[in-house]
């Protein structure tokens, strides 16, 4: 049992993270052409709205929720110190989770029933969406069963996750957690593992720099100030490849 736990909560995360970093960086540097959101809205646009929008907005909020609990756990604990606020947090998270689930269900339904979308689907799309559906259901289950889940995350899981990142893995807390939460953790590792091999790559290239970039872009093949200058250097080097 211990070996099994070690594999799931220590080896798997390192494996997932290593593959995530090596894989995504390799793919970004070498097969850039294949990084795309692979939008299918051009083939079907109406049903996509009821899938993609609730799914992604729910995801954005829950992603930041998890991120805050990971980076500044005290903030969550302080917020949850008041029962009403705890309730607000849990209800809000549950609502976003539900929005994700409804959205993803619509996406999966659309992907598997629309002839045109089926043509542009790979088996990896189904794997990813399957993983995500399981992950969301587990998340909702936790929210429903363990109302103080958010505090638990901040107080117990955050130290565990940090221990992974600080290369001193301590899995004692996780091993004592209920099974649903353990499965949710394993699910997260599998999703991280899937990034370099799937369309999830698109999340890593979210176009945030658009916000501060000027609208127009002009690219010069040469430096327009220097190109006519008579002072350009004449090199005595021989070509490197001759």
């Amino acid at each position, binding site marked *: 049992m211990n070996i099994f736990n070690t594999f799931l909560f220590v080896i798997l995360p390192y494996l997932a993270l290593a593959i995530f970093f090596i894989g995504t960086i390799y793919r970004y540097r070498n*097969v*850039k*052409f*294949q*990084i*795309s*959101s*692979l*939008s299918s*809205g*051009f*083939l*079907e*646009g109406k049903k*996509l*709205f009821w899938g*993609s*929008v609730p*799914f*992604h*907005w729910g995801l954005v909020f829950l992603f930041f929720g998890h991120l805050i609990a990971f980076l500044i756990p005290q903030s969550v604990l302080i917020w949850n110190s008041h029962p009403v606020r705890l309730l607000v947090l849990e209800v809000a998270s549950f609502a976003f989770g539900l929005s994700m689930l409804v959205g993803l269900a619509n996406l999966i339904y659309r992907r598997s029933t629309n*002839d*045109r979308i*089926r*043509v*542009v689907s*790979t088996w*990896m799309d189904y794997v990813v969406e399957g993983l995500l559906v399981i992950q969301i259901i587990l998340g909702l289950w936790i929210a429903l069963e363990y109302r103080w889940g958010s505090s638990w995350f901040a107080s117990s899981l955050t130290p565990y996750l940090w221990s992974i990142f600080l290369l001193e893995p301590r899995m004692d807390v996780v091993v004592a957690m209920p099974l649903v939460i353990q499965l949710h953790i394993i699910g997260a590792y599998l999703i991280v593992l899937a990034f370099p*091999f*799937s*369309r999830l*790559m*698109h999340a890593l*290239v979210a*176009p945030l*720099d*658009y*916000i501060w970039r000027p*609208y*127009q*872009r*002009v*690219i*010069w*093949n*040469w*430096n*327009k*100030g*220097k*190109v*006519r200058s008579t002072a*350009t250097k004449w*090199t005595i*080097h*021989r*070509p*490197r*490849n*001759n």
Partner: protein
Amino acid sequence: MDVRSQMSMVFHLDKCIGCHTCSIACKNIWTDRKGAEYQWWNNVETKPGTGYPSKWEDQDIYKGGWEKKNGDISLKGAGKLRGLMNIFHNPHLPVIDDYYEPFTYKYLDLIESPAMTDQPTARPVSLITGKPIDIKSGPNWDDDLSGTPDYARKDPNLLKLSPAEQEAMFQLERMAFYYLPRICNHCLNPACVASCPSGAIYKRGEDGIVLINQNVCRAWRMCVTACPYKKSYYNWHTGKSEKCILCYPRLEVGQAPACMHSCVGRIRYLGVMLYDADLIHEAASEDENNLVDRQLDILLDPFDPEVIASAKKNGIADSTIKAAQNSPTYKFVKKWGLALPLHPEFRTLPMLFYVPPLLPVMASLKEVDNKAQSEKMDPIAKNWNDNWLYDTSTEELWGTIEQARFPLKYLASLFSAGDEEKVKHILKKLMAVRIHRRGITVGDIDEAKVKQAMNDTGLTPEAAEEIYYLTSLAKFDDRFVIPASHREQSIEMLDFTGDAKGTTGFGFKETPARGA
């Protein structure tokens, strides 16, 4: 003054015969691939008509281009706020049915069919799903269908005409149409570039060609919405957007783009224009009635010593300046004032200009007594030897333009943001050139009339001759003035030329395979 050079185009619409050779030349080279079957970087549509994609000019539907609000311009259907809020689902993205679902026929069924009592048929199948489809539309589905209720009468430009004018336009005897070939306009204020969240679309500094970097495009698909001309296309298979590249690999070796090279009607002209990049924003933000004039204002005179000096300071090569001086597009657009941009009100400052068509406008109509006329018909040739319905004689000079069977308002809606005077002035000039030439070749026009026509339009006989030459006789090198692209200079910036030379042809190429 920030002088830049731009490859610009002029299409002479009177000369287009609607043969679609241009579209085929382009398709064969660039878009005969999976995911791009439906894309026509060059397409030719019949006007009046709905065009491709259907009703693309109606920005209430497609939300393309810029709009002016409180004195400044912003993208109508994309941009930083709107684009990022809609990134998970773009509500203004056209779907493939707005173009057409690409299809082929199962030809093999004809050959492989066993012996039967009935003839085998080749059923149409979708090129997307591979399943049999009922073809609802296809490339040039509305070709030559002027007057039909489904196409011509749904032309968005007709909204500017009164119902009575529309009715009159579509009376059978009056009906006229012309062709409108379209490619990407390689705009000075491109909406596609501005809308791209990943910054994949850019304008090349040295020649102004607008390109999409296929390695940076992430299918946020905002450019498809933002381009008011619908000239950025989404490849549904690769998950990348694509557009006309003005055949830059051909231009770089001095060849004309394929559509222009192959153009049967020789309607196409290509040349360099120098412009002042500092004034782009101002010109694009101008009031609608001044938009065309302001756009023409920022195109600079390549003979002006001040312009030449600034161009040199900006690194523009002498050969490019020379090409700008010989540019046929400069002559049509600036020197003679004969060409206008398509839908200037979209505010992208398109650099493809059109000489508006005179022919559908020229003939005037007479009221006729049908009964009396039918008795006059030649019983054998089944025609009339008088101009009983259409009067195409030039005697009336301008009279015919004003009572044209094709309302000028319609042309003005396409080429001058509704300013009929601009279109009328150009048509008069085109007419004056004809009158001038007829005076010379046929000699049946009174000299005073020729003079009057020239005076009215401010043309000199020399200018008329030049226009006549470039319109009717021009050779390849007159129609396409392509400067050397000086790639060697761009290579010098990055590498030792000896290295670049020694490695040409070597390197790695990635197949454009779809991601997962």
